[in-house]
């Protein structure tokens, strides 16, 4: 899975900033977002609800609707800054080299068009193909994601399929053009637990088979530890810690990451209550000064309340915290 580290990354995001314009001003939903992704790599993007994971995912492919606006930063994909492309150039990247899978499978598919039409357009908008061949490609891809009797399914409408089936259709659609990067925005959260497990396992197999790089957005650290090579932890619109899965999970340096780890059910020693991070994530319009986590942090000092913590790193592992945890002592 690990590709050559010296080669240039598939995706390099630098200081990406997306704001939402409200009546009283512009509020950043993501700010100074930076990370890299190598070809074939799986990055888990983790954070609580409202931390800006979806906005980050959409911002990568320029899909932010008003009142949102991507105001600055670079998204270099294979060396090209996607933010500098024309609408038409960007369109040709979307769905072809970079696909996305959404959070809610029930709203992702157009209710009045057949599964087949919605899949086939993902092909025909990028290349001239014979309809019969395109249809066959859809059927083959549906089979790959575990849909039974795909010949019948392609002619059905979304409401005739269960939620899990619909998410498989969305995944199949994302796979159609063999993209180099798939952004999956919590594709299993809306589904029940057994289906979640199945889809996760299938995604893992497919990812290994195709070698596609994957950004898996989730609030569930458990999912990430199974799937990802690296983890990026988001808080209040920025990445607070990023590194190899083992490094981040075994020796987290940011107090927020530790808080997330402690609230994963499986990791709690028996008899000990599940510890939630106290307090709630700050809303878009009320981001604290200094380190945005300070109102909830047990290590917060005066410095934290006034100064934004700088980026610190040790090898491939980096974090933003004035008083990082000691790697020897945790968790």
């Amino acid at each position, binding site marked *: 899975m690990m590709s050559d580290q010296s080669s240039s990354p598939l995706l390099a995001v630098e200081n990406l900033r997306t704001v939402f314009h409200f009546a009283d001003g512009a509020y950043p939903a993501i700010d100074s977002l930076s990370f890299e992704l190598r070809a074939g790599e799986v990055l888990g993007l983790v954070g609580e609800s409202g931390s800006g994971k979806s906005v980050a995912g*959409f911002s990568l*492919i320029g*899909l932010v*609707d*008003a009142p949102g606006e991507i105001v600055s930063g670079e998204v270099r994909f294979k060396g090209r800054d996607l933010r500098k492309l024309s609408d038409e150039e960007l*369109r*040709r*990247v*979307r*769905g*072809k080299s970079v*696909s*996305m899978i*959404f959070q*809610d499978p029930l*709203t*992702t*598919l*157009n*209710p*009045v*068009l057949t599964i087949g*039409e*919605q899949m086939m*357009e*993902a092909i025909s*908008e*990028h290349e001239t193909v014979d309809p019969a061949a395109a249809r066959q490609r859809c059927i083959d891809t549906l089979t790959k994601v575990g849909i039974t009797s795909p010949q019948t399914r392609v002619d059905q*409408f979304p*409401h005739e399929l269960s939620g899990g089936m619909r998410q498989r259709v*969305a995944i199949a*659609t994302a796979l159609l053009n063999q993209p180099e990067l798939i952004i999956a925005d919590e594709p299993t959260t809306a589904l029940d637990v057994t289906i979640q497990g199945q889809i996760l396992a299938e995604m893992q197999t497919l990812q290994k088979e195709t070698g596609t790089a994957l950004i898996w957005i989730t609030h569930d650290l458990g999912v990430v530890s199974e799937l990802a090579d690296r983890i990026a932890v988001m808080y209040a619109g920025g990445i607070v810690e990023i590194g190899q899965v083992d490094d981040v999970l075994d020796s987290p340096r940011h107090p927020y990451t530790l808080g997330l780890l402690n609230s994963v059910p499986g990791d709690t020693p028996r008899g000990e209550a599940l510890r939630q991070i106290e307090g709630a994530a700050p809303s878009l319009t009320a981001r604290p000064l200094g380190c945005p986590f300070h109102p909830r942090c047990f290590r917060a000092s005066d410095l934290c309340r006034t100064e934004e913590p700088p980026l610190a790193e040790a090898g491939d592992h980096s974090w933003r915290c004035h008083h990082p945890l000691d790697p020897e002592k945790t968790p």
Partner: protein
Amino acid sequence: MLLFTLQRMLQSIAVLLAVSVAVFLAVYAVGDPVELLVNPEATQLEREAMVSRLGLDQPVWMQYFTFLSNAVQGDMGTSFVHAEPALQLILSRMPATFELVFLAMLVASIIGIPLGLYVGLKEENRIARAIMTGSIFGYSIPSFWKGMVLILFFAVWLQWLPASGRGETVSVFGIPFSFLTVDGLRHLAMPVINLAIPNIALITRLTAAGASEARMQDYVKFARAKGVREKRIVRRHILRNILIPIITVLGVEFGSLIAFSTITETVFAWPGMGKLLITSIYQLDRPVVVAYVMLVTFIFVVVNLLVDFTYALLDPRVSLSERMS
């Protein structure tokens, strides 16, 4: 499916019956046709002969049942004024009205859908706001007033368009149509626009509301994420979804347009069913009025049935058998 059809048929018949009673009673209460039809110098004997010939000496309920059993057989009575079967008289005027209404709907869709898409798909701007404000006027200005202004402007002042009549017609299968000749089209222009204006407004607003809602939907965003071109997103993803309410409203409007065309037909002296209705009301030509109302009700009912079926065809989520419950 069969049960649904049967059920809707029964409903429709019930509606027709209820309307027939209401209309018959209402018309019965208004005026005395004998006064109008009989020569004031006529003798009492002549009067009575006339009354019994027209069946006006029977009790109301007898008159109603006679009317109903005849109506079922397609006989809606004979016009007091024209001495011609009432239904036949109205049917002979129907093509003129249908021509007007169809063209008005066509014009309303051709103008209203693009305007609505413009407003609904763009961010707020001055043109969009102007369109929306205009649509309020278009919908609320009374038809007769608009008609007069049109006549004053295009017929009297500019003298571009004729103010009344159907102009030259061409017969197709024995039915005269105006839209096939230049002169006919010139005669059609003003009444069609007059009838279309409120519907342009309605369709614009409906399309705008639908489009601005649809473009925010996840499936549109997902289509963008797939790299689908904007043109196709509008045509297949957005329009396909808002076509459902538009067709429903168009269907329902078709019925009301036939009814409301009375004013337009009167203002522009368009020889359709509506103009016949107004004349018949003034002349207390009871059978014609009753036949007109029954026929329009019938058209309403049929159109609504068709709309229901089309709706089910367009929206895969609606199956006819499900809608029975």
